[in-house]
């Protein structure tokens, strides 16, 4: 928050700077695909040639949480894997965004049972929920655009 207080809180300079940083960040999202289940098939479809996530600058997956800034949580999270997901989240550097891909990560879906976590927001904060079982590629693209909008309009730390 250093620079922001030097400029004297919210004013023309900081809002313009926020916009510029937001514009830069929203087109360079490096996803960490935490793929566990059926939604992975749609993730494959959406990130390969036909639907081409690269148009949004968000197709190059980084398999190290240290290099990623968007955690794409794709597929059912069971009680057994939840601690691992949380650990991956903790290892990511700020700024980080979480996308709940598919209804299982949003609410648990129709797996209301002893082994499934009721939505990943019980273990970490979520930025965008993409419902669908699995969501169609178009839905995923819309979710991603919503995230970009969120990044564009948010206050950044500098």
């Amino acid at each position, binding site marked *: 928050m250093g620079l922001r207080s030097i400029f004297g809180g919210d004013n023309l300079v900081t809002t313009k700077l926020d916009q510029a940083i937001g514009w830069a960040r929203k087109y360079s999202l490096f996803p960490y695909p935490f793929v566990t*289940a059926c939604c992975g098939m749609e993730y*494959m479809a959406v990130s390969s040639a036909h639907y081409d996530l690269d148009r949004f600058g968000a197709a190059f997956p980084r398999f190290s949480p240290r290099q990623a800034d968007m955690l794409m949580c794709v597929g059912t999270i069971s009680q*057994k894997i939840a*601690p691992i997901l949380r*650990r991956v989240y903790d290892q990511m550097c700020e700024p980080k965004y979480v996308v709940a891909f598919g209804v299982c990560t949003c609410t648990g879906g129709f797996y*209301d*049972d*002893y082994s499934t976590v009721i939505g990943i927001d019980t273990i970490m904060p979520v930025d965008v929920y993409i419902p669908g079982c699995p969501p169609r590629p178009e839905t995923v693209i819309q979710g991603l655009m919503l995230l970009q909008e969120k990044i564009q309009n948010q206050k950044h730390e500098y």
Partner: protein
Amino acid sequence: MPRNIFKTLQQKFSDFILEAYTYRDDAIVVVDRNAIYDICKFLRDDSRMKFDLLMDLAGVDYLGRDPRFEVVYTLYSLKNNNRLRIKVPIDERNPQIQTVSTLWKIADWYEREVWDMYGIRFKGHPDLRRILMYDEFKGHPLRKDYPITKRQPLITAEYTNNSTITPTVELSNKAMDEYVSEEDGLKVKHMFLNMGPSHPAMHGVIKIILELDGERVVSADVGIGYLHRSFEKHSESIYYNGVFPYTDRLNYVSPLINNVGYALTVEKLLDIEVTERCKYIRIIMSEISRIADHLTCIGAMAMELGAMTAFIYFMQAREAMYQLIEEVTGARITISYVRVGGVKADLPERYEKRVGEQLKKVRAEIKQVHKLLTRNRIFVDRVQGVGVVSKEDAISFSFTGPLLRASGVDYDVRKQFPYSNYDKIDFEIPIGKNGDVYDRYLIRMEEMEQSCLIIEQAFEKMPKGAIMVDFEGQEIPAEKMADLGKFGQTKNLLHQVAVTDPTLLGSNKPYHDMVYAPDKRVSLPSKEKTYGSIEGLMNHFMLIMDGYGIRPPRGEAYFAVEGANGELGFYIVSDGTDKAHRVRCRPPCFAFVAGFGKMIEGAQVADIVPAFGSINMIAGELDR
């Protein structure tokens, strides 16, 4: 044939055979638990029996009955091509039985699963610990007195304290200590490496604890269960047709085959047969799914080896398959298309032509990838001679499908136990001989071509669907009829049903009768009947209401289909109500992953990736 088996067993183990009978053509023997090891050994080794594959091992809980539990073994003989089911009652006070893990290697994992889910102990098992649930879990979830929604607290210790990796078991005796290497006389120490669960090549849900001597794998312990979603428990608490959405998510790359497998098992329990057209529709949809599955498997494997181009080409081809599936079912992946006694709706208009176009695309992509990979030096060097599984090991681990065929065993459920008119179709089963990753790759490539041929033949042999004709016998396409209807020119039409799209508007009577079995116990009536007559309405009501529905007679059945990965079996126990008492799924990749530790022993770390890619592990069906 079953009679001979019964006779031999009764002669040899007269005191221990409690019952022997057949039900729905399945041979079943109920035996005393004290003799299970001897009986299994006899059945495996005797030259007349030769039951060399342990296809399945499952537990069943009959709460309120004494003895409460039952362990069910499904054996298969390659020589005689028959199955045998052995059931062993086990009482609640002392839930214990002799292990058979020394007879079949796969039994190790099957027994761990039964222990995890039912709490039945296996005496003499080398390493009886939980497999699907986590170690801290209390209780045994598939027991009937464990409520399905009873969640236990999340284990947070794993991420709060930053503990170092400790293997859960002692992997080998040299594991932790320094020792002098025999090869070069240097002091060495084995290293432990955790591969997964969050690892790109492990598909997110497998943990392999590797014991490494430099780059060489000394031993490996594979951990699964990260996607356990209690398919079996859900299937026991929902009516028969309600299970289909859950079966979609077993092998989510080829969901239609799971649908067909489950439907055929329930149909076997009910002893009904579907219509001819429906059989061919099931074949066509299964084979489209199989192509999609193999495309994904090879594409992903090639990508993990760095061949991104092949992946992109195959995803393009898979997209064509998904479009075909979507045209019929309305969904891309989780389709829920098949019903007990039929399929949801008939194929859309001019589907054959569409399939022809898309298959042409797929064949072109396959040809491209053949050019890219099959003789590519880099690819071949990384896959040839890697992940070799001998014929004996493959049988002992009860591998099925492409992996068993790559090891040189000719076994395909579509040929050995033909279902849904597969016996009327002419196709070939490719067989490998080395049992390595390269053979599996070639077999999958060839199977896709065979699947294309099957689809084309099925379209030729399929009885024509319902068509609209006018009084002169001329066929009227649906959209033309809709146009005529708009102008009120419906007088000279024979059947005045305006059909625009059978897949989206539900089933109309002429279509409906072609794809549903004419059996009121299972098939929903067509919309015209439901809305137009009291009998139809009552029939619909009886099938939909909770507590009525489809009620197979008391009994049990095992039925297997050839999934994209191998034998996909369902074992269903019915207690006469509208919900199954037990649904057990025999997932083909469970066996592959059980044998994976053995497959990579002695290999390099880099070989793990192609070997794992070639087994096509699908977590949904592995962990269920």
